[in-house]
């Protein structure tokens, strides 16, 4: 099977407009006869379900949480990008497109990214219309700030909880359609199998997590909006329930998995404090607007950070990357932190942390401005801190509170200690320009697909992609498929394909419950996470990856012999839910290592130690690896398919932020 990206012909700037004007439509009467299944209710899923229902389609939406409002998009902190150019600083659709392609280290698909940049401006309009309370200036206009990898201010935000406000906006749109009877919502339901008839996706098997019952659901199309798979590392900033299961079942049913090894390690997270730790907490990238990152110039310096004088501090990002300073992209900031800690300059008890320090900007930037507003000439340090603290509090108050709650240290007084942690996965199901996987009728939106962020995602772009896909892309592109489906009558769930899919799902559950071993599911997940973090994490090499593959295979075999799942099938049993998810992670982890091993280059978040410049920067190999690695599952092995990436509108160069 060849991969057809179906990118429309024509100039990049007019492709999408041209496509929208010529794509086949489904008339309103026919829309009411067409049923769409949406799995996941984060930004992509909630916005897609609401919008498709508004258009007249019959929608069924599923989420594993107790309410669609709890999907993990809720936890996004810093903001959402849009090329509005409200700050008059030279922003444009092209610049957002360019920044995103460059930020992704030239491994994203041009046409998709340009469309994303085009849709970005409408997202902000849509959210404001829904009542999303973005931050505003005194004059009543919207406020902006900067994020990594850009030199303009294009990030819209709502304090440190932008994801929450955007998701609640999409959720309110979804609930409105539930109330109108256009969406049927299934909370506490998990998709555990795809149903294919004549090669097309025609439905899903979902498990009711309260009763344990399996349910069959038909749809003319199935949309997977199920987020990323960062939890394969066990410790990540993802929610505890975030998982790959729906995407993995789609993969096993024939959908190719694109660039699985592309993982984003976020530079500013609260460091690991103990072996019991269940998850890691992000400190928003927006903090790098005002926080300066440093380590002591002396190795193993045990002095209190406030006792280390200015000239004995190494602001290593400002030193290495003067043009972007503390706002270099995430992959670069993360590797630089690792490099300093590995070299013995780390701080804190574990020595695996660096400082994120607000004092300078608190005093010199905000303190001085406020003092000047109040006509205080020659303010003393105490005044500067007092005045500056108020501004910092207004901008980042909830993040500072969260940090204090977790670490018991006050970041207004001492610098934050931070270290990189797994945050996002750029890889995902392979999709074409329509966001359809290679299985007809099955789509992947948002973080669940691979298409927009290449090998590294820029900050504040995940929210943008989720909402662009849901509000503006899929409502148009799905017509390309469904216009040919208007003669397909709803298929009975007694069809043999539904029966077979349900049996396969049921057999897997029975198998897990009949193992009766001695080890908890959690212990397997932890062990897998450690293998992945050590050998397929921030730095990878051939030897480590080969070892990891063997270790994961052995761990998987042990899981099926020794796992202990308490309780029974037909009841509320979170341990059983978790077992199914960990079983899928145990397969995915292997594929990620295979993909990382195949890609003999360093790009973005994928850093192969064998391929680096003398200065320790990632060294791409455009001649041999400028492609999307799309993996086809063949039972216990995988076959590689390549989609060549063509850059016709951007000059490819060595990525530089110096």
């Amino acid at each position: 099977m060849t991969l057809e990206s179906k990118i429309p012909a024509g100039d990049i700037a007019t492709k999408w407009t041209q496509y929208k004007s010529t794509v086949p439509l489904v008339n309103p009467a026919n829309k009411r006869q067409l049923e769409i299944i949406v799995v996941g209710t984060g930004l992509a899923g909630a916005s897609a379900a609401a919008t498709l229902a508004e258009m007249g389609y019959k929608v069924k939406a599923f989420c594993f949480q107790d309410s669609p409002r709890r999907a993990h998009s809720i936890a996004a902190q810093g903001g959402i990008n849009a090329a509005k150019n409200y700050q008059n600083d030279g922003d444009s659709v092209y610049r957002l497109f360019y920044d995103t392609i460059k930020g992704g280290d030239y491994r994203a698909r041009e046409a998709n990214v340009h469309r994303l940049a085009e849709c970005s401006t409408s997202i902000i309009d849509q959210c404001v219309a829904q009542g999303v309370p973005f931050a505003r200036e005194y004059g009543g206009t919207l406020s902006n700030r900067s994020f990594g990898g850009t030199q303009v201010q294009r990030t819209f935000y709502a304090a440190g909880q932008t994801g929450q406000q955007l998701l609640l906006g999409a959720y309110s749109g979804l609930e409105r359609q539930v109330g109108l009877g256009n969406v049927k919502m299934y909370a506490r339901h998990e998709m555990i199998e795809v149903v294919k008839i004549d090669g097309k996706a025609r439905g899903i098997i979902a498990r009711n997590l309260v009763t344990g019952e399996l349910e069959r659901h038909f749809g003319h199309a199935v949309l997977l909006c199920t987020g990323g798979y960062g939890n394969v590392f066990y410790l990540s900033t993802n929610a505890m329930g975030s998982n790959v299961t729906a995407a993995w079942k789609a993969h096993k049913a024939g959908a190719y998995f694109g660039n699985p090894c592309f993982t984003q390690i976020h530079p500013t997270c609260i460091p690991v404090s103990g072996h019991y730790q269940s998850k890691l907490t992000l400190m928003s990238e927006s903090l790098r607007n005002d926080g300066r990152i440093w380590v002591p110039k002396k190795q193993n310096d045990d002095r209190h950070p406030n006792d280390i004088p200015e000239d004995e501090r190494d602001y290593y990002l400002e030193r290495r990357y003067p043009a972007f300073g503390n706002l270099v992209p995430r992959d670069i900031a993360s590797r630089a932190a690792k490099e300093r800690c590995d070299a013995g300059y780390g701080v804190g008890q574990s020595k695996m942390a660096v400082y994120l320090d607000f004092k300078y900007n608190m005093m010199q930037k905000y303190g001085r401005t406020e003092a000047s507003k109040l006509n205080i000439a020659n303010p003393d340090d105490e005044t500067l801190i007092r005045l500056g603290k108020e501004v910092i509090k207004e901008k980042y108050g909830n993040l500072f509170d969260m940090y204090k709650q977790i670490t018991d240290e006050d970041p207004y007084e001492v610098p934050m200690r931070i270290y990189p942690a797994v945050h996002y996965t750029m890889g995902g199901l392979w999709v074409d320009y329509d966001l359809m996987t290679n299985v007809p009728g099955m789509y992947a939106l948002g973080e669940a697909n691979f298409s927009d962020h290449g090998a590294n995602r820029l900050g504040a772009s995940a929210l943008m992609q989720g909402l662009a896909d849901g509000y503006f892309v899929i409502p148009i592109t799905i017509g390309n498929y469904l216009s040919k489906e208007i003669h397909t009558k709803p298929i009975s769930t007694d069809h043999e394909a539904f029966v077979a899919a349900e049996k396969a799902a049921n057999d897997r559950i029975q198998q897990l419950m009949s193992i009766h071993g001695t080890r908890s599911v959690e212990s397997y997940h932890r062990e897998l996470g450690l293998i992945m973090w050590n050998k397929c994490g921030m730095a990878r090499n051939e030897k480590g990856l080969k070892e990891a593959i063997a270790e994961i295979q052995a761990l998987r075999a042990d899981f099926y012999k020794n796992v202990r799942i308490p309780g029974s099938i037909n009841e509320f049993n979170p341990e059983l839910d978790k077992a199914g998810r960990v079983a899928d992670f145990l397969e995915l982890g292997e594929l990620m290592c295979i993909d990382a091993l195949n890609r003999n280059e360093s790009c973005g978040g994928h850093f192969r130690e064998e391929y680096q410049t003398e200065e320790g920067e990632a060294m791409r190999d455009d001649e041999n690896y400028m492609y999307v690695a799309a993996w086809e599952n063949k039972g216990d092995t995988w076959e590689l398919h390549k989609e060549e990436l063509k850059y016709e509108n951007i000059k490819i160069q060595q990525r530089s932020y110096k």
Partner: protein
Amino acid sequence: MSKLMKLNLKVWRQKNTNSAGNFEEYKVDASPDMSFLEMFDVLNEQLIETGKEPVAFDHDCREGICGMCSMVIDGRPHGPKQGVTTCQLHMRSFNDGDTITVEPWRADGFPVIKDLTVNRSAFDRIIAAGGFISTNAGNAVDANSVLIPKDVADEAFEAATCIGCGACVSACKNASAMLFVGAKVTQLSKLPQGKPERETRVVAMVNQMDAEGFGACTNTGACAAECPKQIPLSVIANLNREYIGAKMNGK
């Protein structure tokens, strides 16, 4: 590594919605740096190792924003600290040797599913009744074409930070959901975009709230005191104002 604390737990166990529940006692060693839920992870590992059923509890983001975690700890929703969810409560807030009682939210509107897990779908139905602005994707005008004064935007934002956890209902002797409903009504009625529907919205949401079996407000203020996002009691006053205004206009 800080010294481990020895804790005695009294935890509510209930097989399912229809069965009667009871307290079970457990002993757990915890580090002061653990979160309350990580302490429960340790308990559950112990239970699984000894062949017993772990305690079912809701949790997801573990950073205080998804609103999924929901434990009544020593009689207080989300425990002894103000302004934090259960997942952000750390064991350093307790002492070595403490006995801690843990129960689910208790309200007719939130039936127990199992142990500490309850069904909060009533909140979704209240939102579906009217907690939205009726606008379809594609209809919007440019975001800066309607100016919103900063103080109004800030007020709307403060109300909008509600995480829908239900602690307000759990804290209230009447199991009233008026802090939750008031927060959404306040957010949307303050913003110019929410004005066209403000009267129909508040009536529809209050009707649904009543239909779900939540009680009325008697101004005790326990909801605001226990709210992990510190939604102020003034949103209830605003809810009442909006409701009376709508009723006087015959809605």
